[in-house]
């Protein structure tokens, strides 16, 4: 399904790590010291599935919705960590993606999940826990809802809206934003135009009302 260009882009990050003639392996432990003069930077973390990862895009490093949101709605000094994974469930997002958001002291976390969970009940419970943990860390949480194309989307959207209200998260109305592109969900392939729509919806939710 993926073109050679897509595959090349998929391996870009992996290839990044083959660098480093100046850096050498060391047997000792301990991480580099942080500079005392470094100011606290805004950190955007995105948690999602295939669409957030950028599957379907030839140039996901430029065109995925987290990248577009990062470029268009945040100042230059912001750091982006895309903690998405293909076919991730909310249950799995409670693992490494959540830990990562907490580790980097995320100031904004954009979450778009929901169409890969087995049941709405489990989805609601796990999402509530995820948002609670993120809100407790002081992060602003943006919660994207679903497009209502599939069975269960409406119930999932009810859960998302309820959790957003209860936990002080910001609901991102992707149902409306993606109304012209049926079949698009968190775990689907996306094109550049769809990525842009998703990013714009998140950016609109970020703006003060």
């Amino acid at each position, binding site marked *: 399904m993926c073109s050679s260009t897509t595959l090349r882009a998929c391996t870009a990050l992996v290839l*990044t790590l*083959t*660098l480093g003639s*100046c*850096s050498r*392996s060391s*047997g000792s432990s301990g991480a580099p010291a942080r500079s005392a003069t470094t100011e606290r930077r805004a950190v955007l973390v995105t948690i999602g599935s295939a669409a957030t990862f950028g599957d379907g895009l030839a140039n996901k490093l430029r065109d995925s919705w987290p990248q577009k949101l990062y470029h268009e709605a945040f100042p230059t000094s912001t750091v982006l960590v*895309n903690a998405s*994974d293909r076919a991730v469930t909310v249950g799995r997002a409670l693992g*490494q993606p959540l830990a990562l958001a907490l580790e980097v002291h995320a100031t904004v976390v954009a979450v778009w999940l929901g169409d890969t969970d087995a049941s709405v009940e489990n989805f609601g419970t796990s999402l509530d826990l995820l948002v609670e943990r993120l809100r407790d860390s002081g992060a602003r949480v943006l919660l994207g809802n679903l497009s209502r194309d599939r069975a269960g989307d409406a119930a999932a959207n009810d859960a998302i809206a309820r959790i957003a209200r209860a936990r002080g998260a910001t609901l991102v109305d992707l149902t409306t934003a993606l109304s012209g592109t049926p079949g698009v969900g968190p775990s689907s392939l996306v094109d550049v135009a769809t990525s842009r729509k998703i990013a714009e919806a998140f950016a609109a939710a970020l703006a003060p009302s």
Partner: protein
Amino acid sequence: MNYRDAIAIAARSVTRRLGRAVLTVLAVALAAALLSSLLIAGTAARSRVLDDVSRGGPLTGIRVDAAAPDAGALDTDNPPQGAPRPIDEAARRRIAALPGVRGVVAVVVNPVLVIPPANLPKPTRGTTTTINDPRLLGDEPGAPFRDQLVGVDLTRLTDVPVSLEAGRLPDATSQTEVAVTEGFLRRLGLTKKDAERILGTELELGAARLFSERDATVVRGRWTRMNIVGVVAQQIGDGQLLAPIASATEARHWAASGSNSAAFGVDSSPYSALFVVARSLALVSTVRAEITKVGFSTSAPETLIASVQRYLHVVEIVLGGIGLIGLVIAALGIANAMLAAVRERRREIGVLKAIGARDRDVRRIFLLEAATLGCIGGAIGTTAGWLTARALAGVVNGYLAKEGLAGVSLGVPTTVLIGGVIGATLLALVAGTIPAQRAARLPARQAMGDR
């Protein structure tokens, strides 16, 4: 006879035989011009060659790597490294306190994936650059590529002189500023002429980190956006991106916290390297030996610089020799002119002696005349030599610019200019000594009788 009278007689003699005086002055001027232009060009070439040898740092710079010295390594500029050994702040301070060390600059290097500016300027018309870099992850100029982010303590830039092609260096405390190299421009299909146009554009840097999840390994990037504020002439270590050390440290912290970062060239050393500057070229060997005792591998181009210095010294001797031959010829010209003057002015010498001038008064007149010719010739010659060297530098700089290399700066070689005038005057005095002596010893009666 006082000096004023002697000067007046010498000046009158010079103006009375203006043609011969002008020719003598020209001979001296030509020789002085030849010598001074050769010296100026030689000195400029010397500094240029040594600057090139020490690209990326001063001549007294020593690179200290995060590795122990190889016990079996012979003394070379770049000895093989021993086992990895982290450089921490304590090691940096210990090295900074060593005798002969002028300064220590910490360097942090981290591999990054670079997303070039989206609004990449088009190459300047008429220039073509072939992009043939295996690190490019695509065929087009805007494709992402791998590189090294080199973080340097920019508050210590006096110890790491970096010359700018365009713009400025990043602010030492900025988290969003970066300078790039000419190599970076070439990778984007641009040339040095495009340096100004890339300023203000934004690029994105991703530091990668490995995560192990069950049986899978996931790579996640930590992305930062940076504005290009300058283009530097030198390659910066192994990288093309120069940033404040805090930016590189943050990226390195992220990468080093991964599950198997060492396999991808990211170690846990707080500093990737140190750049140590010795107080003088002569102390480089001593400082390197001291750092080896502390337990770190070093590299410095000291053997190369010593070889280049020897070679350049030979060139200077040859050039100086050519100039000196010119000066000797000029001296012979002065002596010849003065001997001719003595012969022509025998009657005048006789009259001077008849009215009471002593031998030393006559000698003084002729020496003053020779010194005047030498001084004027020296002043004209050294000035002409400097202008000639400048013209030559213009031609050379044109060629260097065409080749994409930094030009030569001559400055004003005060020592050569002053030394040229004084030297030419002294040479004229020496050359005029025998004619002056001959004139002084000429008996008055013999001088008058010849007529």
